[in-house]
């Protein structure tokens, strides 16, 4: 095959690729602002709904005898809201926000420690016949 022909074909391909890339770039530019606005919320919503399903299935598998400990554990883990309070107390510029963050950390900590420990107490009581 003639090397010149190949060179011309390669050149044509390269041009085409460049044109496509430019097009894609232009498209991305138009889509990006829309996606940036919509994506985080949709992503969070997706995760939220999937987590609801996971929760639904996991909780139905909990034995009714352990429904009180279930409340204890869910109580403790819902205090993960402490994360938000920590961010406020540690990052906020405003003193008011820091103060609210501190109060949030304190209340949530009562729950974290109280919730997990009272659940542990409850669970330690559940013994089977074999163990006596």
């Amino acid at each position, binding site marked *: 095959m003639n090397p010149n022909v190949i060179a011309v074909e390669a050149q044509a391909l390269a041009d085409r690729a460049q044109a496509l890339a430019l097009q894609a770039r232009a498209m991305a530019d138009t889509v990006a602002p829309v996606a940036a606005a919509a994506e*985080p*919320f949709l992503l*969070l919503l997706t995760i*939220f709904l999937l*987590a609801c399903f996971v*929760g639904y299935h*996991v*909780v139905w598998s*909990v034995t*009714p*005898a*352990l*429904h*009180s400990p*279930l*409340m*204890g*554990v*869910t*109580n403790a*883990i*819902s*205090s993960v*809201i*402490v*994360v*938000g*309070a920590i*961010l*406020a*107390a*540690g*990052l*906020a*510029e*405003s003193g008011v*926000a*820091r103060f*609210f*963050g*501190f109060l*949030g950390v*304190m*209340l*949530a*900590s*009562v729950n*974290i*420690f*109280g*919730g*997990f*420990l009272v659940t542990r107490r*409850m*669970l330690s009581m559940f*013994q*089977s*016949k074999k*163990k*006596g």
Partner: protein
Amino acid sequence: MTTLTTLAYLVASVLFILALRGLSHPETSRRGNLFGMIGMAIAIVATLLRPGMDLGGVALIIAGLVIGGGIGAYVAGRIQMTALPQLVAAFHSLVGMAAVFVAAAAFYSPESFGIGVRGDIKPASLVEMSLGLAIGAITFSGSVIAFLKLDGRMSGAPILFKGQHMLNAALGVLLLVLVIAFVATGSDLLFWMIALLSFALGFLLIIPIGGADMPVVVSMLNSYSGWAAAGIGFTIGNLLLIVTGALVGASGAILSYIMCKGMNRSIINVLLGGFGSDAGGVAAPGGGAADRAPVKAGSPEDAAYIMKNAQKIIVVPGYGMAVAQAQQVVREMADLLKKEGAEVSYAIHPVAGRMPGHMNVLLAEANVPYDEVHELEEINPEFADADVAYVIGANDVTNPAAKTDKSSAIYGMPILDVERAKTVFFVKRGMASGYAGVENELFFRPNTMMLFGDAKKVTQEIVQALQR
């Protein structure tokens, strides 16, 4: 948010799911709880290591963790298991209030959460913020009322007044209007007005609900505390909060559903409240309906004699057992009967006690092995060949009117078929009807023997008679 923090949050979410998963069996549950603790520790440490945290902030956070954690650990170590429902209600109120504080912090310092600047927060974030704030505030005040009712500091009787539901509906509409105005203006005043109105709403929603409906209320507030966390998660764009909030919200919702089903009532019916407000007509022993045969009252000695000769005994505990703190002596009785060669098991109605699974914890505390404790569906077929059903502190959940009497307030409620046992003992203080205000026809059946007196005292006397 750095990749590492996100990864840590993912690990924490998975550990939380495993914590719930562990509760499918008592054997795996303790490990599950440990997973939950590790997940929480990871979440807290990862957040503390976020760039931009200054030393003063970290000191403040650690102070909060130590003070709060100390109080929590102290309370958890001291609490009586009978007081568990009020403790859980109190804990729910704290989650609600923490949500309010975080919402306020995000409102006053939106820069820290990347949702805008003070006075110019993105409208979408304002919507999410007001949701988290409102749900958190409702959870707080609702849980405070539930706590006061469960702790006996406030009467368990429903508080009803004219136009109550209209007022609540009007306040709900007003809340919606405030939220819309808040999103449009982002004003400080409206933020706090939403908080105040939600506090009032939480208060008003729970006061009409009576004491024995508390299992539903506690479950529902459990669910709310989850939704509040998720709402805050949306506000500050935090995945861990959203995932955990969804898990907890779903859990509480399922528990509420199970409790409602256990009473054959819709959640709406429970929320509208007022159930059993005319309950508690106390009649003298034997003086129930005039056209009925008089009830047969027996002595603890009679009961001990019959049980000594029984092969199969099913104990049916209710909230009355918890009130009388009789669980320990019930187990002693069961031990003596087992020595006599009898088979003893326990039947738990889904709504027995003041929170889901309350009876199971109390029996476990009294060292009753969990394999002797059975749920309603499991044990109901067993009553037919039981010699004795020992009903202690339960009433409505054994009333056969639920199966036959369409006009009864408890019609359709699943009940424990104690009437099929050869002999039914009812340990009761008097002839008062149960919470639902319905007379229990079982008291008048020939195979029923009433043991009048305090649950603990009567059982103790049976134990003494058995030892003789």
